[in-house]
């Protein structure tokens, strides 16, 4: 085990920017990886949406990119499913896990607790590079002979387990998928271990647990969830790989006839994969969204200029959601053929999660009451987060009930639900975090006008995309279809075309964000140390922070992170201000 040996400032390009031990560099590396991943995932979703709306229309250039997948430019069903699989996998693992948790957490968790670095810098560096390799392995499946897997990001057995006979991409592509995810688990386990040890052991003098910022609390809770979740997905992927390459039968039952051939497996259990996968998969939803809870709770008071309502209750909500997330995985399997009585057992804790989620929402909305709300891009995205989280969360109320799920399961209602609550809400948390922390990460402010346009167009866009999916689901529109050829789906096609137009437009709006990001990184206005007049420790140091975060200064914390709206010359107290004193 590596001790937190103090390491000096690195020299040379490789040690400074590539194989750096500095948590801030690693955080930025994770951020850049997430950026590449999210652009990839978004382009895939454009192609999918275009095909869904106009299934017979050729897409110029697609035939050149994928001569097998889109002869003459019209997407084949198997290409659609491959894009869908890669979209889900890239977004869930390499964006929603890396950006809010690994990227921001790496950069800011040590600073927010007053540490010089993570507890285990070498493990930290390994965590990023292992994750990077996992991404390369996943993307490499685009370039193998048969292309990537078409089994979806959930990779249900036996489709994912019996090999090439199951369909195109179920050869090398699916094996690469499983290897990539197994590697990814290792990277995130290293990361979680670091976050936990850093939070518990490296807090500076006076930084009691109660004085930790909400974002730190959220990353800490998330890392505990991640530690357990990825520790289960890892062996599940190993067993899947063995079924595929070594001829074992963990997930493949006997007596299957695939492509007119009797499969040489016996006795395996497809439901076993589903249980192991969703034991990871549901907590993964909270790995994506809890950092958003933390980021919003962290940012909102700085813009409302008053303390977050019920700070301890909020931390209680984070922890109870984290705990409950391990009791509900079966709600993904109501109609899977598992014991129908257990459906009710899984339904109740799922519904109970509504309680801490409702409380958290009320606390945010209650914080706005009587505030002096400052409107800037970070606060706009926080408000947007609350709005989409409420909308997406409430549709979960339907899906949590087996009696209703038997109708809505695997329809676009589910797609709308999880995109709003897990993808869009989490993305809004990420956007709020980017606009809020960019000055600290890169020492320059982002362009505020572009930021606001980005918010308004995105906010309107995501509602236009994902709200109608609930209507589609109510009408029984099945998901994961390459073409809607069923008779009863034909009346829904205009709505699909509306969604596609909204998706293409909203996607294009993200170029504003990308442009702002790149432009501000090099040409933005130099940022002051504390542009938002916020209290936590990252704003007590320079923008960007020096190599050891506080320039060798002994940081002593005397205040909680929530001291806004106080009387005095400044309306807030920095966490490291002297006891009882004002400080800015």
């Amino acid at each position: 085990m590596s001790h937190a040996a103090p390491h000096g400032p690195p020299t040379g390009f490789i040690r400074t920017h590539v194989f750096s031990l500095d948590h801030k560099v690693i955080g930025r590396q994770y951020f850049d990886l997430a950026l590449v991943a999210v652009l990839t995932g978004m382009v895939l979703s454009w192609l999918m949406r275009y095909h869904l709306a106009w299934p017979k229309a050729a897409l110029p250039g697609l035939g050149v990119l994928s001569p097998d997948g889109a002869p003459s430019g019209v997407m084949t069903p198997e290409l659609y499913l491959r894009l869908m699989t890669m979209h889900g996998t890239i977004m869930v693992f390499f964006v929603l896990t890396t950006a809010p948790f690994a990227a921001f957490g790496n950069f800011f968790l040590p600073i927010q607790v007053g540490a010089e670095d993570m507890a285990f810098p070498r493990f930290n560096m390994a965590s990023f590079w292992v994750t990077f390799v996992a991404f390369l392995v996943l993307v490499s499946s685009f370039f193998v002979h048969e292309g990537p897997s078409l089994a979806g990001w959930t990779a249900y057995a036996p489709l994912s387990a019996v090999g090439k006979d199951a369909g195109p991409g179920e050869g090398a592509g699916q094996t690469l998928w499983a290897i990539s995810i197994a590697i990814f688990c290792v990277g995130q386990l290293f990361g979680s271990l670091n976050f936990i040890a850093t939070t518990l052991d490296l807090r500076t003098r006076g930084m009691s647990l109660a004085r930790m910022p909400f974002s730190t609390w959220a990353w800490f809770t998330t890392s505990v969830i991640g530690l357990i979740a990825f520790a289960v997905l890892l062996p599940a992927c190993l067993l899947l790989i063995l079924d595929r390459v070594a001829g074992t039968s963990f997930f493949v039952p006997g007596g299957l006839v695939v492509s007119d051939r009797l499969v040489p497996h016996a006795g395996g259990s497809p439901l076993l994969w589903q249980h192991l996968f969703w034991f990871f998969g549901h907590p993964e939803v909270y790995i994506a969204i809890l950092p958003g809870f933390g980021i919003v709770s962290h940012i909102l008071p700085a813009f409302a200029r008053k303390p977050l309502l019920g700070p301890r209750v909020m931390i209680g909500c984070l922890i109870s959601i984290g705990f409950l997330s391990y009791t509900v995985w079966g709600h993904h399997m109501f109609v899977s053929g598992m014991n129908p009585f257990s459906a009710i057992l899984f339904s109740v804790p799922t519904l109970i999660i509504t309680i801490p989620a409702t409380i958290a929402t009320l606390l945010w909305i209650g914080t706005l009451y009587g505030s002096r709300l400052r409107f800037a891009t970070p606060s706009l995205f926080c408000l947007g987060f609350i709005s989409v989280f409420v909308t997406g969360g409430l549709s979960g109320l339907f899906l949590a009930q087996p009696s209703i799920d038997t109708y809505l399961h695997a329809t676009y209602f589910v797609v709308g639900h999880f995109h709003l609550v897990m993808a869009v809400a989490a993305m809004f948390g990420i956007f709020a975090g980017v606009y809020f922390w960019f000055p600290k990460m890169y020492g320059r402010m982002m362009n505020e006008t572009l930021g606001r346009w980005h918010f308004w167009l995105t906010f309107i866009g995501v509602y236009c995309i994902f709200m109608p999916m609930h209507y589609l689901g109510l009408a029984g529109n099945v998901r994961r279809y390459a073409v809607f050829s069923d008779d009863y789906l034909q009346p829904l096609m205009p709505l699909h075309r509306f969604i596609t137009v909204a998706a293409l437009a909203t996607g294009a709006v993200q170029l504003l964000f990308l442009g702002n990001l790149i432009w501000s990184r090099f040409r933005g206005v130099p940022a002051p140390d504390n542009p938002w007049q916020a209290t936590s420790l990252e704003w007590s140091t320079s923008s960007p922070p020096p190599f050891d975060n506080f320039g060798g200064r002994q940081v002593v914390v005397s205040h909680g992170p929530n001291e806004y709206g106080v009387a005095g010359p400044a309306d807030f107290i920095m966490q490291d201000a002297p006891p009882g004193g004002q400080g800015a």
Partner: protein
Amino acid sequence: MGRLFAVVVTLFTVVSTALFVMHVWWLPPGISVVGSGVDRQINETMIMAGALFVISQLALACFAWRYADLGDARPVKTFPGGATPMVVASILLVGAEIVALTLVGSKVWAQNFMVDADPHALHIDVQAEQFAYYFRYAGADSAFGSMHPALINDANSNFFGLDPANDTTARDDIVAASLVVPVNRPIQLTLHSKDMGHSFYVPQLRLQQDFVPGMVIPLHFTANRTGKYEIVCTQLCGLGHYSMRAYLEVVTDERYGQWLKEQAP
């Protein structure tokens, strides 16, 4: 900016709520008694979720409008009562809602999945494969021939792996590509999968159940309206997943008897 936010949020709330209330896109008409229980449950949940949706979005809009950019001079106010009433209200109200929904919903769920089919139900075997469904009726002897995966052969239409040469019960089994059932008669399906996970979903029946390879899964329903409905696959099963469908034909008793005669081998 606060006003703009309030207006946009209110607009979304009103438009999306109206589209739900007006049933612009809605469930297709149901064709079973249990299905109407599902509809009731959806409606009740819709009212509760809708109320929470409207209240929270409007509160958000209201506060964003009211408290935007007031300048630093004004002291901030705490929400009346602080966090405690919110916690208590959430636990009590949401808790009561959970109890209510679970009590009513579990009954509906149980009717679909936890009670056995009517003892006089008509038994039909279903085989799902990439990318089709086949339905098997027992024939005159009311007994199904046993299934042998090694004998499954799509080329000669032996979708169930029957062995009529040695198995007398298999000889009169009727295999069809459509699920034809008499109206108002309890139906007991037995779901088998030849290869992958598939699913049996008829939106009008409000019924969905996966086929799991290696498992034999019972499913029952009673359709109370004649007509032709699509059975679609909802479990990703390979490249032709989108095209995997069959028809459920609910017919009168006479028509059913006639159809059975036409099918007899």
